[in-house]
C-alpha cells in the first residue's frame, strides 16, 4: 500500500503548519499541471494555497534548483525581491541530496531550509508513456494504491499499465542512499534499490571506440543549445557559466558540432562529485538527448576511483578538492 492521497494530505498539512507557525515564508512543492501527464512546481506562501499541493508519480522536477534564488542576495536584486528567506521544500530522495550539495557548496544555508522528505517510489518518464501510446494523447491520469496507472486517452479509451513500466531511467537505477538530515518525514515506504546500477554505462564502455564516438556525436547533434539542461540542474549554480564567458570565449557561439560538444563535455565534467542523478537535465531537454549516459559515467568514475557519492554529507570534502595516494593508477605516462 502506497497511498498518494495520504502523502499529499500530509504534505499539505506540513505546509500549513510551517506557514501558520511562521517557520517558513514559502513552501515549494508540486501542483497539478496543465496537461494530464504533468505536475509542476508550486510556490505556496499562504495556508489557503497549501491546498494546491499534490503528490503523484508526475512530480518530477528537482525543486532544489529554486533554492539559491531565495537565499542569495545578488547585486541585481531589487529591494522588493529580497524574498522570504526561509523556505520549506518538498523533496524526493535525490532532491534531498541536491540540497545537501547546495549546502556543501555554500549556495544556501541549511538553517533557512525546511526539508519535507517524501517517500518516493519513482517518477514516470512522460516520453515512455508517449511512446507506448503511439501518439494517442492522454487526457486523464489516475494512479491507484497498487501502483497501477489508469490513463484515459483523448479518444476516450481507458488503458491500464503498471507504473513500473514507465519509471524514469533515473529511478530504475536509483541508489536510494540518502542523507538523514531532513526536517519532516512524510510517512510511507520508499522503493527499494535497483540492482542494475551503471549497467548502461558498462555496456557503453564495452562498445568499440568508433561506436562510442558515433553515439556521442549523434546525441550531441540533436542539441539546440537552449541551456535547459543547465538551467534545470541544481548543481549548475554558477553566476557566470563557462559557456557564456566572452573573455576567454570557451564555447564558440556557432553550432559547429565541436562547440556543442565542448559545451557538453564541460557540463558533464563539472558534474563530477556533484551529480545526484536526479535526471533534471534529461527531463528538461526538449530534444531528448541521452544526457544520462554521459553524466552517469562521471558519477561512476567518481564513485569507483575516489569512493565518493554526491549529496550524502554536507561536511565531506568535494572529491576534486582532495587527493589520494592511489589516484589515477596507470594515468601517468612513463618512458
Amino acid at each position, binding site marked *: 500500500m502506497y497511498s498518494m492521497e495520504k502523502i499529499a494530505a500530509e504534505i499539505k498539512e506540513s505546509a500549513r503548519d510551517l506557514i501558520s507557525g511562521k517557520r517558513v515564508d514559502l513552501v515549494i512543492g508540486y501542483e497539478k499541471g496543465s496537461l494530464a501527464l504533468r505536475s509542476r512546481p508550486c510556490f505556496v506562501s499562504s495556508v489557503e494555497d497549501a491546498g494546491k499541493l499534490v503528490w503523484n508519480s508526475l512530480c518530477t522536477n528537482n525543486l532544489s534548483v529554486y533554492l539559491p534564488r531565495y537565499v542569495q542576495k545578488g547585486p541585481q536584486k531589487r529591494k522588493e525581491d529580497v524574498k522570504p528567506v526561509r523556505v520549506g521544500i518538498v523533496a524526493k530522495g535525490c532532491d534531498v541530496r541536491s540540497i545537501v550539495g547546495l549546502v556543501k557548496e555554500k549556495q544556501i544555508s541549511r538553517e533557512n531550509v525546511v526539508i519535507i522528505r517524501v517517500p518516493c517510489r519513482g517518477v514516470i518518464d512522460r516520453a515512455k508513456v508517449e511512446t507506448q501510446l503511439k501518439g494517442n494523447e492522454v487526457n486523464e491520469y489516475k494512479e491507484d494504491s497498487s501502483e497501477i496507472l489508469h490513463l484515459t486517452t483523448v479518444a476516450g479509451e481507458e488503458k491500464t499499465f503498471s507504473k513500473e513500466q514507465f519509471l524514469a531511467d533515473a529511478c530504475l537505477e536509483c541508489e536510494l542512499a540518502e542523507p538523514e538530515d531532513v526536517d519532516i518525514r512524510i510517512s510511507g515506504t520508499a522503493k527499494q534499490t535497483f540492482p542494475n546500477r551503471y549497467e548502461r554505462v558498462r555496456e557503453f564502455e564495452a562498445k568499440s571506440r568508433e561506436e562510442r564516438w558515433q553515439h556521442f556525436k549523434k546525441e550531441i547533434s540533436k542539441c539546440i543549445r537552449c541551456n535547459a539542461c543547465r538551467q534545470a540542474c541544481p548543481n549548475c549554480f554558477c553566476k557566470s557559466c563557462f559557456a557564456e564567458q566572452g573573455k576567454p570565449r570557451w564555447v564558440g557561439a556557432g553550432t559547429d558540432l565541436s562547440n556543442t560538444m565542448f559545451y557538453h563535455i564541460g557540463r558533464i565534467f563539472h558534474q563530477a562529485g556533484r551529480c545526484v542523478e536526479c535526471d533534471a537535465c534529461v527531463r528538461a531537454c526538449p530534444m531528448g538527448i541521452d544526457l544520462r549516459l554521459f553524466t552517469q559515467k562521471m558519477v561512476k*568514475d567518481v564513485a569507483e576511483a575516489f569512493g565518493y557519492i554526491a549529496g550524502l554529507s554536507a561536511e565531506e570534502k568535494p572529491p576534486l578538492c582532495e587527493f*589520494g595516494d592511489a589516484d589515477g593508477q596507470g594515468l601517468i*605516462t612513463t618512458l
Partner: protein
Amino acid sequence: MDSTEKGSGDKEPRVVAIVCSWCSSISAELAGSGRNQYPANVRVVRVPCAGRVDALYIVKALQNGADGVLVFGCNPGDCHYLSGNLLARRRFALIKNLLEYIGVEPERVQFSWISGSEGSRFAALVEKVVEDVKKLGPAKKLVKADV
C-alpha cells in the same frame, strides 16, 4: 564533410605541452640548453602550476587542432604549492576517462611527472607522445571545422 571529423591533413602532428612554471618548465629549458633533441612540432604553454590546468584547457586544445596534449606536473611531493599536482591528477583521471568514454583516443591526452633536472627525460617524453600521436594520425574528433 562532417565538421568534427576534419583533421589537420597530413601535416606533422601538433602537440601541446602544458608545463608548470617550476619543475616542468625548468626541465623544458634544460632540454633546450642541453641540446636534447625533441620534435619541433610541440607548442609549450606555461601555467603557474599543474593544478591550474582546467580540464577545459585540454579539450579546447583538441578543439583548436592539437593532435595531442601532454600535461606536465612536478613529482608528487615536489609541488611548489604543496598539492597542486595531486589535485590535478584527479581531474586528469576524470577527463581522460571521459574523453575515452566518448570515443577520443586515450593517447591524445597524456600526463606525466617530471623534476627540474630531467631535461633529457622531458625531451624523451615529448618524443614519445609525438610518436604515439603520429601512429594515430591527425586528430579528427572534437576538432573545429576549417573556414
